[in-house]
């Protein structure tokens, strides 16, 4: 769902939108009040005469009903009312956001805006071209349906982003736990709502037509699926954080259900779109084109995911088959921690070069690069034992030692001696070893252009370079926004602004640049230096204390460097 133009479309400020809605609603009600009064005065005076004793509240109530009935009939007023309903949903969303999530980070803002516009555009196409909602009441109903769904979708993706951000911080305090609980509650409510909507689809959609029922059901299922996916990923993350040693992984069941959900949501989306296209027969229309593009993206996502899974399976079986777990004696002899995660090894896998690692750690490294992390011994060799034609096999096993020392493309050379088709096979293998990372250059260029639109003063080459490592537009934008990627142009023009955007760095910079070089040996310096010995040898348990100690250590280091430099300069002068 990546529309280039979407990036630039602004979203009106919340307060402007709400006040505009309030104004329009009051204008519409005033207008309809006037009209309904004009229309009903003759009748009403006739009716009201005998019922003089009526309660004034009842009269107001009746008038209200009159006004409302009029508003529902007048198309313009009707739209205003619809807008009012959407506005109330937006307000609910804003309240929930401020209660649960607090302020959004700039990246979240951008992503939110992008998602909102994508949603609006896609559903607009869907409503008018696929569902052919031309009458006012139909439009209103679909509008309501889609705004509710869209609201839930946006909330879910915001929560997802926030969860991912929170995994990055060390916090385990009660405040963070509360945040987790808040967001979980919010997501569960979203899940219940999606089930509720599913029920609604069953009750209403089925009476209308089977096709509409199918559309509604798939939309609800996609929402419920994505919420469940977030929960699952969260569970896996928690597992990784809390598991003391890396001997266990979250388990086959969890892995496969995550994979299943991930693929399932995308397959459902593809089904949804193909159903829409087939139903309306709109292969060659603009809407059909947009939807086809989107489906292409989805299919390539699925392919990448499947390739990653294939790679995972290969590494898994490769490890199981060729490298045994280390025995207890071997573990006793080896007192080191696992070199990948730096934690103690209670059980480990042993590589032919004698290095030991946690099974889980080794697995995730091998998915990336099949070599020993410590000595870089290539570990692709065992792969030739999987090849069905076994006449090379004996040779491979006999020369295990020599083979193992060579990089893996040597094996492909070897294979060609025996069978002409082997080389092409092994090329395939090396390809799948670095699977999801490879992006076509054309794709890269479009991605870079997208980033360039947002940040025109960044050189294209730099963006492409960053995209090569991040492999996602969002992450690169993230990098730029958070100052990790600094444009050389910008650097010259407004240096101070960049420094300001990195708060802690600024404190050090300010400290360095402060014109206080004359007073190194004033009272500020000395006690700090005295403390250094004790500071250097402790690692506090409290985060605040750690932060302070680090700051003091940095300042002391700069101070000492200054002193040393000045004394050097003065001694060279006296000479």
């Amino acid at each position, binding site marked *: 769902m990546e529309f280039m133009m979407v990036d630039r479309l602004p979203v009106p400020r919340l307060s402007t939108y709400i006040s505009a809605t309030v104004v329009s609603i009051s204008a519409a009600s005033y207008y309809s009040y006037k009209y309904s009064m004009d229309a009903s005065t003759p009748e009403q005076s006739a009716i009201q005469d005998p019922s003089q004793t009526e309660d004034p509240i009842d009269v107001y109530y009746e008038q209200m009903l009159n006004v409302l009935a009029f508003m529902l009939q007048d198309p313009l007023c009707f739209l205003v009312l619809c807008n009012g309903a959407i506005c109330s949903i937006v307000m609910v969303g804003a309240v929930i956001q401020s209660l649960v999530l607090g302020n959004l980070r700039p990246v979240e803002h951008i992503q939110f805006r992008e998602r909102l516009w994508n949603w609006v555009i896609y559903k607009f196409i869907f409503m008018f071209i696929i569902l052919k909602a031309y009458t006012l009441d139909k439009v209103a109903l679909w509008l309501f349906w889609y705004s509710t769904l869209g609201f839930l979708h946006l909330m879910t993706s915001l929560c997802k982003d926030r969860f*991912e951000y929170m*995994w*990055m*911080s*060390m*916090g385990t305090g009660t405040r963070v736990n509360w945040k987790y609980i808040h967001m979980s509650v919010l997501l569960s409510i979203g899940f219940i709502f999606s089930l509720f909507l599913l029920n609604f689809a069953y009750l209403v959609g089925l009476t209308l037509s089977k096709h509409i029922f199918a559309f509604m059901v798939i939309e609800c299922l996609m929402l419920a699926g994505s919420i469940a996916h977030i929960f699952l990923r969260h569970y*896996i*993350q928690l597992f*990784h*954080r809390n598991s003391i040693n890396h001997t266990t992984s979250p388990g086959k069941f969890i892995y496969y259900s995550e994979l299943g959900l991930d693929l399932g949501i995308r397959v459902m989306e593809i089904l949804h779109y193909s159903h829409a296209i087939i139903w309306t027969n709109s292969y060659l229309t603009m809407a059909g084109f947009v939807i086809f593009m989107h489906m292409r993206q989805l299919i390539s996502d699925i392919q990448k995911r499947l390739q990653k899974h294939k790679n995972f399976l290969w590494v898994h079986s490769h490890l199981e088959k060729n490298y045994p777990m280390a025995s207890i004696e071997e573990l006793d002899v080896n007192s080191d921690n696992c*070199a*990948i*995660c*730096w*934690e103690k090894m209670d059980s480990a896998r042993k590589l032919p070069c004698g290095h030991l690692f946690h099974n889980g*750690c080794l697995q*995730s*490294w091998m998915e*990336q*690069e099949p*070599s020993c*992390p*410590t000595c*870089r011994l290539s570990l692709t060799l065992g792969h030739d034992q999987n090849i069905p034609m076994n006449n090379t096999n004996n040779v491979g096993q006999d020369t295990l030692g020599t083979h193992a020392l060579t*990089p893996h493309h040597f094996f492909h050379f070897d294979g060609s001696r025996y069978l002409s088709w082997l080389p092409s096979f092994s090329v395939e293998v090396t390809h799948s070893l670095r699977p999801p*990372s490879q992006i076509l250059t054309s794709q890269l260029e479009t991605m870079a252009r997208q980033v360039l639109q947002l940040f025109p003063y960044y050189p294209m080459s730099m963006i492409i*370079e960053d995209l*090569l*490592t991040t492999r996602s537009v969002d992450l690169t934008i993230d990098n730029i926004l958070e100052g*990790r*990627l*600094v444009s*050389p142009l910008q*650097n010259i023009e407004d240096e101070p602004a960049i420094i300001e955007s*990195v708060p802690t*760095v600024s404190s*050090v*910079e300010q*400290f*360095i*640049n402060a*014109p206080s*070089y004359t007073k190194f040996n004033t009272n500020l310096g000395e006690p700090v230096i005295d403390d250094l010995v004790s500071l*250097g*040898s*402790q*690692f506090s348990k409290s*985060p*605040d204390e*750690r932060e302070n100690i*680090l700051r003091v250590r*940095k300042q002391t*280091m*700069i101070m000492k*460097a*200054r002193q*040393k*430099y*000045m004394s*050097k300069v003065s001694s060279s002068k006296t000479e």
Partner: protein
Amino acid sequence: MAGSALRRLMAEYKQLTLNPPEGIIAGPITEENYFEWEALITGPEGTCFEGGVFPAKLVFPSDYPLSPPKMTFTCEMFHPNIYADGRVCISILHAPGDDPMGYESSSERWSPVQSVEKILLSVISMLAEPNDESGANVDAAKMWRENREEFNKIAEKLVRKTLGIPINP
């Protein structure tokens, strides 16, 4: 996964705090986000960068240590292996898969057994002995080869700048 990355970073932070190597201080910028660090590196003695304290920023990926962090100097630098925007170009920071310059053997590149400490130590040795073949900053590489005196002068200015000492006292 971010969970194990976090624990590993915590362990590295602890080690760097308890046994800090000579001339290196490094730690997270804030305790809220362990994936962005600031490091202070002292210019190695006996070189043109001697005495300077150079601040740099390290940004870790969520699958650290499987992928290398990115390192950027936040002060002005002039060095053959540092881009104009401060990014550091040394082989230890390159993932085994990619080879932007096409000259490194994979044995010099990133692997999970590397650590922040090793990165910073190799940056210090890079400051002492630039690799003028990599050419992240071509002007600096040329000057390093052909006009060492001028290079030393610029380095001296940078050292003074990081310490906040005016050029002409």
